[in-house]
């Protein structure tokens, strides 16, 4: 599967990046392609391009705050979870996607 994801937490200092790392790591293990955009204290990094989004099968939002530029994902299936869930149990998250 081709996945795009956005992570964002209230302070944008630690959990945004932990969730991103966890998503990338787990996707790799499960054989998915993933690109994760972080919306944290340093602003938006690893920004998803229109092409990235167009080519994706679905989007994951691991966010405790509103995702910026959400309209970009208008035509995509979005799975929304809390940042904690992405960090603590990423395997369960990806298993859920398959269904």
């Amino acid at each position, binding site marked *: 599967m081709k996945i795009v994801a956005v992570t964002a937490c*209230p*302070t944008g*200092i*630690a*959990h*945004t*990046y*932990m969730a*991103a*790392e*966890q998503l990338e*790591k787990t996707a790799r293990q499960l054989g998915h392609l993933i690109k994760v955009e*972080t919306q*944290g*204290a*340093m602003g938006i990094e690893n920004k998803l391009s229109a092409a990235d989004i167009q080519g994706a099968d679905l989007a994951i939002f691991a966010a*405790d705050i509103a995702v910026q530029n959400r309209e970009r994902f208008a035509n995509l299936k979005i799975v929304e979870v*809390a940042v*904690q869930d992405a*960090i*603590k149990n990423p395997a369960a998250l990806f298993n859920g996607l398959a269904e």
Partner: protein
Amino acid sequence: MIAIDFAFPLANGLHARPASLMQEACLPFASVCRFRNLRNGRHADARSVLELVASDTAAHDACRLEISGADEKKAGRALRAFLRQDLPRADDDLPTPAFATVQTAWLPPVFQHGAVSVLPGRALAPGIGSARALVLQKTRMVALGFASGKKDAKKELRLFQDACREVEAELRSQAAAAKNATAAAIMKAHLAIVSDPGFRERIIGLISRNKMPAGAAIAKTTLVFCGILRRSASAYLRERAGDLEDIAARLGEKLYGHLAPGSPHPERGPRVHKGQRPHGPQVVVAASLTPSELLALDRRRLRGLVLGDVGLTSHTAILARAFAIPTVALPAPAIKEVSAGEELTVDGQRGLVCRKPGPALKRYYRLERMKLRLQAGQLAALRGRPAQTADGLRIEIAANIGGSKELAGVWRHGAEAIGLFRTETLFLERETAPPEDEQFAAYHQVAISAKGRPVIIRTLDIGGDKPLPYLSLPQEENPFLGYRAVRFYAEQPELVKSQLRAILRAARHGNLKIMVPMVSGLQEVRLVRRLLTEAADELRLRKIPHAPRLELGIMVETPAAALSLDHLGKEADFFSIGSNDLLQYFLAVDRGNARLNALYDPLHPAFLRLLFQVAGQARKAKRWLGICGEMAANPEYLPLIIGLGFDELSMAAPAIPLIKERIAKLDGEACRALLRRVMHCTEAAEVAALLKEFNGRGRAAGVIGAGLVRLGSASRTAAEAIKELCDLMELDGRVDNASALEEAVWKREETFATDLGLGFALPHGKAATVRTSSVAFLRPRQPMRWGGKSSAPVRAVLLIAIPATTKGEEHLKLIARLSRRLMHEDFRETLLAAKDAKTVLAAIRTCLAAK
């Protein structure tokens, strides 16, 4: 009549100490001296400390001294000098009321547990103290009859005057016996009140004219003056009312015995509620406590003070700080809630009192005490250590003194030298010049006390503003641009040589140097050299032992001197910039003129350029360069001072510990880089902004250091772990105030707990108190529950602190990288298995350095 207009120079206003100095300055003259505050229209007899204090004069108020009488010219000259030289320095060693307190109403969650009752108040003296409450009774003024037993004004008056004499004698002996300088100063201020003509004559009038009983006359007069003081705009002056009541009570005690209002019983101990155990450690609770009552308490058992409506600058609070007694003021209803014998924790950091603290809170306060102890240790270590920047640049920190009386405080504050000994006090207020032997005694005392440390003695710096009867200096329109200091040395060689001989003799006993004031050309230095040689020759002829030579320095305070260090260096061994005068001469701004306050700015780009040039010339001439003005004592200016490359900074002694601490955190190269940028600034505001940014950035290197790792911590809960980590940040200089960070961390923790379910918790906070983004690591002895729903016990805690503004923060990237790395089990295992702090540091640093 002579009128002198001036702007009141002291930040705390005209309180007892400057008022008593002003009184002393007026006393030698027969002329009538009236003090007028032109802002509020109040006026006072300048010989009455109380009337002066009651004039409610605040900093920068426009004031006028009016002098009329036979010797008004002489008095005018003396008072002008007093206003210019002595008054601005009257508060130099006043214990500063500012101390590090927690400036937030927020309380950590541990305060909400159990049956703790928290009474919020105001911190008066820092520290934490716990013990059982000893409640002292509140006393009231009561109507008093005739002290003599009958309506006999004469007898009553005699009794009153006897009482005054007794109290004066008591205060004098207490001041002399006081081991603590603050206590002695307060006793002296009280002495000034009891001897005050305004106060005493009013009472005498009431007794003799109105036939009042002495007690009633004292009470009425006290009430009048207290009323004026309490209406004052300055908090400091309002709090002087407590001193007046103390004096009234002492007088009452002498007149009536212990029945008097509010009488203290130094011999009999404090007034104790019945049924209270008077032994063991105690927290004393008293709605009002006068300075003499505080002095009468047994301080060995005193763990804390809980007072009623008492201000930060009241003498009771000043004493509490001097004796390091944690003290909190509570509002009137709250203080009544405290019952005798119950356990109290006085929190002089947060300004609150906890009744019956439970085990969790006690553990929390144990951590707080530990931090305070470590901080005190850090300061004490700084005191003994030479000042040095983070990159190893040595700077000598010296003290300015005006007389040998200030010596004890100088060394206690950790001065490494005396950078400026003003000798004028030896010469003022006398009919004849001080004999050489008398001067020798003073210099000798300083030399002995310095134990080999350098002492720079400034030679006579006097002009037409300070008339000396034995030195006929002309009266001048503008004595500060006049015939003063080194400029009259040629005409008064004997006076100068007596000083030089005395110094040469004393220099056998220590490392004395001389410094010449007001130099504007080489010929002046050559003159002093010649006088010095003559003085030494005379001593040799008289076979009086003396030092073979003295280092001779120049006080750089005229722009002319500042621009000719290369020439002056031929005759001078060292230079010290007198920044106060140099600035006023350079900018043509009278620093005593309130209207010009904004112009008198050491950050003026032209002035900084001048200093830059001076520093370069001094280096070229291979002469060491010091600075002894107020600029040297300002921690905000420090990066510029370091950047300029001064060898020595000399300041009022109390400023020394903070300056040393700040220096240790600065990096010489970074300071020089800042200075290079500042040299391009076009206005002072621009310099100030650059400085502010620089100071805000903080100088701690890297995001983690050895001081930020604690293994085997005794913390058992998230509350303790977070507190301990925040304290590590403060102790390491990463944050100014651990509690403010703690607050930010807990606010974050409340949105959801930051344990990851992997045995790790990652609390973090963003706050203005954070100087530089940092992480701290803690491993508890036993795994702890974090409080979230996570079942996994937490075995390691990583706390992240981020400044409020993080624009261009390189550190944020590092922390993001660290957070990502924590998602990998091998990294977590390394941190959990590490045997020592060094391994933890290495693992984290490797992770941060990775691409």
